[in-house]
């Protein structure tokens, strides 16, 4: 395998040589699959030809565009559910990290919620919130709660005795120790939790759609499967992958921005930015004086 070029951005040639083998393997697998179906080794009822999945993709995504309204509904459900779940999880984790009694009251419920399969709540949640988006958002919130709660709490409970002693010796109060030491130190774990939670939220939204819904990619996929239109069904599945990727990489991006001190290039970039900001301030305050 070739080493990446020395410049920060990989060039097109390097990218091609890097990914060509993967593309080739993917192409070969698709061709074998297509041949197996065409020669009748696999029946079309069960598994569609890659070419018919391709045709469905072109129709659903580009010609009729049927997929898009459902795509955005599911995306919205997952994101809103995640936001609600994350807000509650972070609030409870902060409370639990600040107060031992509070944590002792919250913990049993959080654990019971975790060991109960959240997905099993689907019928109940649909009964409470109806067939619309409400029930999808609620289920997404419920099952994304725990990973975020546990990771945030673990992060906030990490104690570095020497650093706490440093803050104490500087006369810092509890609030200052919390905001300037505990929270930044917890950020890496918080983001690990958010990444898991976001993917979990999508599962919640889709499962609730499978159960009972009027719109969303889950509904669409159900419909195609009942019609035994396997090509369209799998083409719809692809949209869930797409939503998953969008969600995961937006969180990855935020992680990279906010927890910048863990990666060398980001550290260097932020370091240069802070140096420029310092200089600018020194210049302006010099002028006003």
């Amino acid at each position: 395998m070739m080493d990446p070029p020395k410049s920060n951005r990989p060039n097109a040639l390097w990218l091609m040589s890097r990914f060509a083998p993967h593309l080739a393997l993917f192409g070969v697998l698709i061709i074998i699959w297509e041949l197996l179906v065409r020669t009748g080794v696999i029946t079309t009822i069960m598994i569609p030809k890659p070419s018919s999945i391709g045709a469905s993709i072109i129709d659903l995504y580009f010609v009729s565009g049927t997929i898009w309204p459902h795509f955005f509904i599911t995306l919205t459900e997952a994101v809103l559910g995640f936001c609600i779940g994350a807000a509650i999880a972070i609030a409870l984790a902060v409370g639990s990290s600040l107060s031992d009694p509070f944590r002792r009251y919250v913990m049993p419920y959080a654990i019971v919620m975790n060991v109960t399969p959240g997905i099993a709540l689907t019928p109940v949640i649909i009964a409470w919130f109806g067939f619309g988006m409400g029930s999808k958002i609620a289920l997404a919130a419920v099952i994304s709660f725990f990973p975020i709660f546990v990771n945030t709490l673990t992060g906030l409970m990490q104690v570095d005795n020497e650093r706490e002693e440093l803050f104490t010796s500087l006369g810092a109060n509890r609030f200052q120790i919390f905001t300037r030491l505990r929270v930044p130190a917890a950020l890496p774990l918080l983001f690990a939790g958010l990444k898991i939670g976001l993917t979990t939220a999508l599962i919640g939204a889709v499962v609730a759609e499978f159960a009972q819904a009027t719109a969303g990619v889950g509904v669409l996929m159900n419909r195609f499967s009942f019609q035994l239109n396997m090509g369209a069904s799998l083409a719809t599945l692809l949209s869930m992958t797409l939503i998953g990727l969008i969600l995961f990489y937006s969180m990855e991006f935020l992680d990279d921005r906010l927890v910048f001190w863990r990666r060398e290039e980001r550290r260097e970039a932020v370091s240069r930015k802070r140096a420029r900001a310092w200089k600018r301030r020194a210049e302006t305050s010099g002028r006003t004086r």
Partner: protein
Amino acid sequence: MEQQAIIEANDPGTAVVAGSNVGKTFANGTVVALDNAEFTIPKGKFVSLVGPSGCGKSTLLRLIAGLIAPTSGHLHVHGTQVAGPRQDVAMMFQRATLLEWRTAIENVLLPTEIAGNVEDADRERAMELLHLVGLGDFAFSFPAQLSGGMQQRVALARLLQTGADVILLDEPFGALDEFTRERLNVELLRIVAEVGATTVFVTHNIAEAIFLADEVYVMTPRPGRIAKVIDVPLERPRELAIQTSPEFNHLVDEARDVLGAH
């Protein structure tokens, strides 16, 4: 009132740190970390605490810093009793304890931020201090971009940023290699003299303790005690080469005798 008399007897005019009958026990009195410590440190003096592990060096430092309270006796800094962390005392640890999400200069500014608002003058002072410890060019580097020795320099600049004139150092360069440690020790002497601070320095190393100090407190464990105070009459500024002189070796032997006899 009785201990007040003792402190005055120890010359209250120049004593910056004074302890009378200071004791600290842990585990319900079963571990005597420090027993009946009596000492006075005059203004601007450099005191080394030396002794084997567990003899109460860190305990004494943390008592002076107000991080823990004595179980007996009294401690005074600048004539007032130590009742908790205070502005005129600052401490530095074996680990640099920098915040890795802050640049060097932002780490130096932490004490100012905790005490109140950061003004332009504080920023200028922080930058001067980074130059003083030889890191002017690294003000915007993150701790991960700095070597262990450079990180300790940032921690030293942060300590000076507090403006405290009593400086407590708990094996500050103990985790560094010998070359770096010797160089930083020489720089420490220069910097401490420049800001006129009263310093207490903890180390395991007898030669290092003597080289740096005006007075060496030799401590022994179980119970933790100040077994002997050795006066170091060597002239300043000191070169590293004095460590081979007969006077220096005589002082080393004196300390060894106390520790060996224990």
